[in-house]
């Protein structure tokens, strides 16, 4: 690897004076699936939003493939938390996916045939083609999550940020999503995922970031995802049982 896919230096973000993410620095190599793990209130979502400049940061420098964040905007994909929008919006699934093309379209241009086709391809990748014309509130939680994922795919980015894509989805959707993430990785894309379920970390992610206001540890999952570091991150509140199968079982 000659250049980090993402480099964050001294990032600090605060809500109402209290720093939520404090002096965070890390680098992420290209072509990896990275899980961001940490207790509630550790600033996982905040970190992502700070990197994407959705919320103001107090300090910090973000570089993507050696260039500034602003110049690389078109190569960034984003999957927000599903609850962040009102799904009773007058639009259908295809329309939402087409929104992923808006950044490439630029001002004044209207989405046309090419965008529609691209959006249909992305819907196909998440197995939602037959729902293209469905009003979005008529979709199940898992289907809504797939739509968000398809929209991010339509962005044709090199680096993806996903905020809890596995929350509230059924096992089938979770499988479909992780398969898609693996595919993205196979194409050399970098994917950062805020993740809650500790039992699947080893299975899903090449790299793991343990976050609790600061980056406690970041690196290959087998090196980072060990009881000692986890206890440190979760403040000793985890009951860790050794298990021969997955190596770790947590409650």
């Amino acid at each position, binding site marked *: 690897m000659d250049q980090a896919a993402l480099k964050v230096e001294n990032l600090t973000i605060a809500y109402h004076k209290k720093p939520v993410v404090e002096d965070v620095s890390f680098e992420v190599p290209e072509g990896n699936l990275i899980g961001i793990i940490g207790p509630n209130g550790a600033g996982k979502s905040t970190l992502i939003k700070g990197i994407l*400049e959705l919320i103001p940061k107090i300090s910090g420098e973000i570089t993507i493939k050696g260039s500034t964040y602003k110049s690389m905007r*078109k190569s960034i994909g*984003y999957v927000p938390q599903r609850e*962040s929008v009102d799904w009773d*919006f007058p639009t259908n699934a295809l329309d939402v996916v087409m929104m992923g093309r808006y*950044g490439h379209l630029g001002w004044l241009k209207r989405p046309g045939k090419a965008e529609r086709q691209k959006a249909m391809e992305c819907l196909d990748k998440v197995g939602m083609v037959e729902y293209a014309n469905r*009003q979005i509130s008529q979709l199940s939680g898992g289907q809504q999550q797939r739509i968000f994922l398809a929209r991010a795919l339509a962005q044709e980015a090199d680096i993806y940020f996903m905020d809890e894509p596995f929350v509230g989805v059924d096992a089938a959707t979770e499988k479909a999503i992780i398969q898609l993430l693996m595919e993205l990785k196979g194409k050399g894309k970098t994917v950062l995922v805020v993740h809650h379920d500790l039992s699947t970390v080893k299975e899903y992610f090449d790299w793991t970031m343990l976050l609790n206001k600061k980056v406690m540890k970041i690196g290959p999952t087998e090196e980072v995802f060990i009881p000692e570091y986890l206890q440190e991150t979760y403040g000793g509140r985890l009951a860790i049982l050794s298990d021969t199968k997955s190596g770790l079982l947590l409650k």
Partner: protein
Amino acid sequence: MNILDIITDPNTRWILLGTMFLGLSSGVIGSFAYLRKQSLLGDTLAHAALPGICVAFILTGVKSTSFFLIGAALAGLVAVFLISVLTRYSKIKQDAALGIVLSSFFGFGIVMLTQIQQSEYGNQSGLDTFLFGQTASMVMSDVYMMMTVSFILIFTCTVFFKEFKLLSFDPGFAKGMGLPVVFLDYFIMMLIVAAVVIGIQAVGVVLMASLLITPAVSARYWTERLHIMVILSGIFGMLSGVSGTLISTTVNDLPTGPLIVLSATVWFFFSMLFAPKRGVLSSVWRRVSTKKKYSLEQERRKGSHPS
């Protein structure tokens, strides 16, 4: 007056044209305000326009729609700024901040209005009609102004439709994509202020919010597509403007502004009851027929498996 008289009376024709365009444009821009859950913001901007207009009148001494536009826009900006300061630097939530700003600006406006009325040239100013609107005070240049601003509003919403849509649905994603979300926020607010200012003469600051919100809410019942909703909302607004004006000219001495608002409300009730899919009647019908179907099925099953 009967309908024929109304159509042939040039003065009424102008007023009709003005309220028509007003309804159309406020319906269009109101759709976005409604979908962005900023209904109360529209109301606040409308009320905040009053002190702005009073200050504009005191400074210039003339009743000019363009000066009023500037005054209302500046007052709207100050109001929006205060709301964001209140929500950001205190624990006050947005609804409370809107309430505080709305009432204090309006109170301030009323005080200034009373001052102007009591001054020497105050009685001719006719500013008091801005509270509930009075179409009789409209002159031809006002109608021209209404048409121009309406045209600009509709044109802008057409040109930036894609951006407004994304901003209304998912502002976080829009920001991540690099859209200047904060700027667009203010831009939409300014469009709302523009709609308020051209609506002041006909409908007044107190009732203006309903012309922004009610057509949009009505339109939402009929469709699941944003562009259709925006067009429908404009049509509902236009119909309200026309029917309100017509009723007030046929029945003497009834105020036009409130009648326009009431017409919009009639359209709302009509939509709420009779819209397919989202309407009350259709959802009741659906529930009843599902129930019926289910119990019929149950009976059939019982019949086929006698135990």
